[in-house]
């Protein structure tokens, strides 16, 4: 096993006491957790499955599982990474059983897309063209606020691999924007 992976495994084992030690009084803290992270998790889920209904289901299931495993949370600042990991696993589990229906278009999506600037639409389009190995770490970083090391731990990858993927993902998105900018300039001349 590579030394970086070993480091993260050991580090995780030596973490402090659970955050939620008194489960009878955990409800207010759990609510604070939901308030702090539900929006970010929803957006992450949406970009994983591209369906608002399924994204909400994923968020619901993530928090249910989080509630049941609340004793496993070792550090309050690790909550975001912990929840993201639960959501990714849940998405992978549901994705295996899910068969997309034809013409699933959410009216909210249409309205949101219609109001968005062209640059945003272009970035969204390119983001969907990215392969999952590039898209997922980028989503975890931008939406989840996870560091390269946290993403590496969540995805069971070496930090250097994650950094390379993040670099390439941005490179591809920038390239798409640059092409679009050139095309616009040509149209203008």
């Amino acid at each position, binding site marked *: 096993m590579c030394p970086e992976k070993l480091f993260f495994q050991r580090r995780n084992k030596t973490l402090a006491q659970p955050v939620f030690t008194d489960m*009878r009084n955990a409800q207010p803290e*759990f*609510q604070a957790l*939901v*308030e702090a992270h*539900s*929006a970010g998790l*929803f*957006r992450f889920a*949406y*970009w994983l499955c591209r369906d*608002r209904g399924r994204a*909400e289901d994923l*968020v*619901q299931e993530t*928090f*249910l599982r989080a*509630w049941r495993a609340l004793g496993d949370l070792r550090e309050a600042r690790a909550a975001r990474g912990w929840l993201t990991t639960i959501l990714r696993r849940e998405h992978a589990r549901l994705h295996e059983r899910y068969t997309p229906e034809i013409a699933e278009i959410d009216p*909210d999506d249409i309205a*949101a897309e219609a109001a*968005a600037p062209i*640059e*945003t639409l272009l*970035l*969204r389009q390119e*983001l969907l063209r990215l392969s999952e190995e590039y898209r997922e770490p980028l*989503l975890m*970083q*931008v*939406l989840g*606020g996870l*560091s*390269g090391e946290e993403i590496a731990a969540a995805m069971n990858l070496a930090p250097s691999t994650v*950094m*390379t993927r*993040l*670099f390439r993902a*941005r*490179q591809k*998105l*920038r390239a798409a*924007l640059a092409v679009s900018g050139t095309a616009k300039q040509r149209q203008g001349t």
Partner: protein
Amino acid sequence: MNCQGFRQHYLSEPRSRDSAFLEHRQTCRACAEFAAQEATFEQALAGALAVPVPAKLTARVILNQTMHRTRRPYGLSAAAALLLILIPVVVMLLRPWSSSLEQDVIAHINDEREYLAARELVPDNKILAMLKTIGVSTKPLLNNVHYAGVCPIRHQPGGHLILAGAHGPVTMLFMPHEAIGQPRLIDADGFRGIIVPHGAGSVAIVGQPGEALDDFKRQLISAPEVS
């Protein structure tokens, strides 16, 4: 960290908290300008990903969690119900005699041990409301009450109070349906107590060994009365 290293790192992790990265940004003007230019792209990216979040998502998540926290699968509920029916039957078969009031008082305290650790003071109006629920009218003379709740005691509604004593928490169990002729002493499981007649029922006062239970009995005599 040199300029090339900084820029490469920035293009992978623009919000890095790495100390060398942050220090280079502070000290190198060219790289600070580079970061400022690239920030436009980061803003555009964040904007593209920020799809609208459904209204009241947080409230729905908490509601769902609350429902699942209390709900149990039907199979489990059925098994639990069956056990609840079978256990008393088996106990009755094995022990033809019924447990004494003293034993039931101690068993109830042990079953709800977590309330012994209650620390918040319960306001008088809450104590009054609880006692009223079980049919007791009261004058609020009970001091330092840390818990007040209605509990089933010997299949009848009873009142469960925790008060602060000199040697630890003192439990008062109001049992308006348990009439006794004479006071009864309790000495079991590390608890000492007394059950005294009270109105048409009785009240158990139980604390740690050495606790001056008479003080609590006096509070009781001038306080709640069975309506």
